[in-house]
């Protein structure tokens, strides 16, 4: 944090405005009433009258406006009204824009509505629209003019905010660790808490702060033309005319005076716009600083000893020895139920007018006790097959049976539970959350889940089994590739899955680390009876497994059983 000047500038600057906001009336030389002075007596004689606007002098530090109001006092006292208006507009926009954007990221129809909204409301400058609307007689006479104008501003800005939110959510959806979260069986709420919220809120916060600055800019532009959100139409006493009166002291009101004779009294608009500029600068800096801080934190350059999201993590008091895990599985043994059956599975990807057939009429079954390897050239459909087995994707045609249950028809919640209970995924790219320690990464699938063992102890136990006892509190960036993959294996094993689906887990590792990882998988298969389906390009590794399935152009071209296992079913 010390090395992010923008953050510090933003904090100090916004703190300065916060002091003015709350303690403005108590600051030195501030007249809270901001009285008007029709004239002041000149310094030389009582007959020497001066008419406003008064230039900066000992009485008026920053000069006065045309009504003889002290600009210094008016700016200080106007801080509250100005910031209240802009923060209200931004807050309402974000309160509506965030759900809008999030829903748009999930539902295609809402995404289209958002696009149409943006198309409609962002094709004309907002400033011009506001000028148009403010001159329509209905909005001139209505006593609720400020609310109407605010509402219009919100409508114009809503699409932009929604779009930013949608993009940030979609970015998370495309991230590898989000994919890992789904595969780990994290529930929808858990996905929100763990991935979306933690990934998106720094961006939203930064954008919200910068948005306040942009609204100030817009209000300044409108102020030049005498249009203020706090303006009402009134009939003053002793005047035949109806007039627009500005109900609140706001910074842009000093800009309106400039239309006539700027060169005669430049201080009036200059100081008014200076306040807008300063606040914009601080808001922009703070927003940039927050983004920078978040970016550094993501890269592991800023390490929190205990990330605050984990502070409230309560561990189950019900203890169970982790060593029971392997004993339980050994007792259970293999049974005929331990099958994954793929029946006439096809998978197509439509796009750009061409349908790409990735898998065609695949009929195969996998048995838990058999260490199976899937091999084949790149693009042959291996990873797609694994995604289908793990219920990450749905086949275009066919059914997948998992212990006699069709998993292709499962609803989201049951699907998440299925993945959580039955399957552990391991990837080539590890997919570890960069801001979490090794232990927290292992615990990741268990958040928002109630389990009857101690989450923390289970994670430590597994890391110990993986030979990473001394790396429990290390960040992924502080681990080697092999170590990261072992953390990923521990994460996959944390809830004792029945199957492990590994997509080229050794693809990014050197031969020594590959051997360690492969031996671990082999041990899990032999000693704990966990079914393993492994994708690899390494023929030497494939030779050491029980069964090799070769895929080419979306079809199974060979299925070889290497070791004689009489009790293997479904082959």
């Amino acid at each position: 944090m010390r090395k992010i000047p923008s953050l510090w500038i933003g904090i100090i600057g916004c703190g300065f405005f916060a002091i003015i906001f709350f303690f403005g009336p108590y600051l030195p030389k501030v007249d809270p009433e901001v009285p008007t002075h029709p004239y002041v007596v000149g310094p030389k004689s009582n007959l020497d009258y001066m008419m406003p606007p008064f230039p900066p002098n000992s009485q008026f530090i920053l000069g006065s406006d045309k009504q003889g109001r002290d600009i210094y006092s008016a700016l200080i006292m106007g801080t509250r009204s100005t910031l209240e208006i802009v923060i209200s507009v931004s807050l309402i926009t974000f309160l509506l824009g965030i759900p809008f954007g999030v829903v748009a990221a999930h539902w295609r129809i809402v995404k289209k509505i958002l696009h149409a909204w943006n198309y409609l409301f962002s094709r004309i400058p907002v400033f011009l629209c506001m000028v148009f609307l403010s001159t329509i007689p209905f909005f001139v006479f209505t006593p609720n003019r400020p609310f109407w104008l605010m509402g219009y501003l919100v409508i114009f800005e809503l699409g932009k905010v929604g779009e930013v939110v949608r993009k940030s959510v979609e970015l998370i959806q495309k991230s590898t660790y989000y994919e890992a979260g789904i595969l780990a069986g994290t529930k929808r709420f858990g996905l929100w808490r763990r991935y979306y919220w933690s990934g998106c809120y720094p961006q939203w916060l930064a954008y919200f702060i910068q948005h306040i600055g942009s609204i100030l800019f817009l209000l300044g532009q409108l102020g030049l033309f005498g249009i203020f959100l706090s303006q009402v139409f009134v009939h003053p006493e002793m005047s035949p005319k109806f007039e627009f009166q500005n109900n609140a002291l706001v910074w842009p009101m000093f800009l309106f005076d400039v239309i006539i004779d700027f060169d005669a009294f430049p201080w009036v608009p200059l100081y008014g716009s200076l306040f807008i500029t300063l606040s914009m600068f601080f808001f922009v800096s703070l927003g940039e600083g927050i983004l920078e801080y978040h970016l550094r934190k993501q890269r592991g350059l800023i390490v929190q000893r205990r990330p605050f999201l984990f502070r409230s993590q309560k561990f189950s008091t019900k203890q169970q020895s982790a060593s029971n895990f392997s004993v339980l599985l050994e007792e259970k043994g293999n049974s005929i139920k331990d099958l994954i059956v793929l029946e006439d599975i096809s998978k197509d990807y439509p796009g750009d007018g061409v349908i790409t057939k990735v898998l065609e009429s695949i009929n195969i079954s996998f048995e838990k006790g058999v260490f199976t390897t899937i091999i084949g050239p790149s693009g042959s459909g291996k990873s797609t097959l694994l995604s289908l087995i793990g219920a990450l994707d749905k086949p275009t045609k066919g059914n997948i049976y998992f212990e006699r249950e069709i998993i292709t028809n499962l609803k989201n919640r049951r699907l998440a539970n299925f993945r959580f209970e039955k399957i552990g995924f391991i990837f080539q790219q590890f997919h570890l959350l960069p801001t979490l320690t090794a232990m927290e990464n292992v615990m990741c699938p268990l958040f928002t889940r109630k389990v009857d063992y101690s989450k923390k102890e289970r994670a430590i136990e597994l890391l110990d089994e993986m030979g990473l006892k001394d790396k429990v509190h290390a960040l992924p960036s502080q681990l080697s590739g092999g170590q990261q993959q072992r953390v990923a294996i521990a994460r996959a094993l944390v809830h004792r899955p029945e199957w492990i689906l590994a997509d080229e887990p050794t693809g990014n590792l050197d031969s020594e680390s590959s051997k360690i990882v492969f031996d671990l998988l082999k041990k899990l298969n032999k000693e704990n009876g966990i079914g393993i389906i492994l994708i690899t390009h390494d023929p030497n590794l494939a030779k050491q497994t029980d069964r090799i399935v070769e895929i080419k152009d979306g079809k199974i071209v060979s299925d070889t059983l290497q070791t004689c296992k009489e009790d293997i079913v479904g082959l």
Partner: protein
Amino acid sequence: MLRLVIRLLGSLLLWCCISIILVLIILFPRDTGTYRDDSNRDVMYYQFKWESYKENIRNYLDVVKKYKGLGKTDRDQPVETELKYYFKKSIIILLPALLLSIFMGICKGILDYKFRGKFGRFFWRGATWLGQSVPDFFLIFLVQTLLFIGMRHGLPRIDMYGDDKLSNVLLAIFFLSMYPAFVIARYTCQAMEEEEEQDYIKTARAKGVPERAVLMRHMLRNCLPKLHQHFMVIVLTLLSGMFVVELLTSYHGIGTRLITAMHIKYSIMPGEPLPIDTSAVIGFSLLILVMLLMAQWLEQIIAYILNPKRRRIRL
């Protein structure tokens, strides 16, 4: 190509819809009424009447038929004549400002990216934050004040107001281009930082490609589609800025003429209507919309040219 044509036609269709909505808003009846309340005070009110709205629309259509164009302004000039005159004035500052802001913005963005050391980051990027935080109106006030002070202390006299001298045009271009330039600088720097992470950049560096070539050929070229996404935002910023710059420099262009035609009132006598120069407001609003449509078409054509799939087909 067919897809591009469909997109262009889609934009045109949407443009027609927006234009019709805008014209219908402008033609809203603007008659007002007054009554005396119990305390004997005048109260002004507005009551929407469909009859007067229909009449306004009918009247405007009659004007269009009669003049076979957009009608006549309150200054008794055909709208087309005024559009032609003011368009020339505004485009002289808008186009150079757009080009200048893109050029300056990209250059500044590259420098922001290049000097990312401890101090470089603070000064170069800090300057971009500062530039982004300076609204166009403050820049104009500041420059005008400084020039006034300078001229009082012997600086040669520079004409800052009006539209007939070169200095007026140059100053307007400068004021108009500064804010968008810093916004583009920020987008450029961000896009380049994203590109830096890509494997092909690492590969290019690993293969010993000179840094300048990596920067200009690999990174900047790949940044262009990302920058292009912000094109319409920049155009909209420029158009908003045009109103402000024209007002504060007394430059007689589309912006000032449209605002004048709208007759913004700050005080009204009881019973006084709130008229606008309907033909002029519709004419100038449509002109601005046409400029935006052109910008959008340009954006779509650039997107088509930059599309890598198209390049692959050509190969």
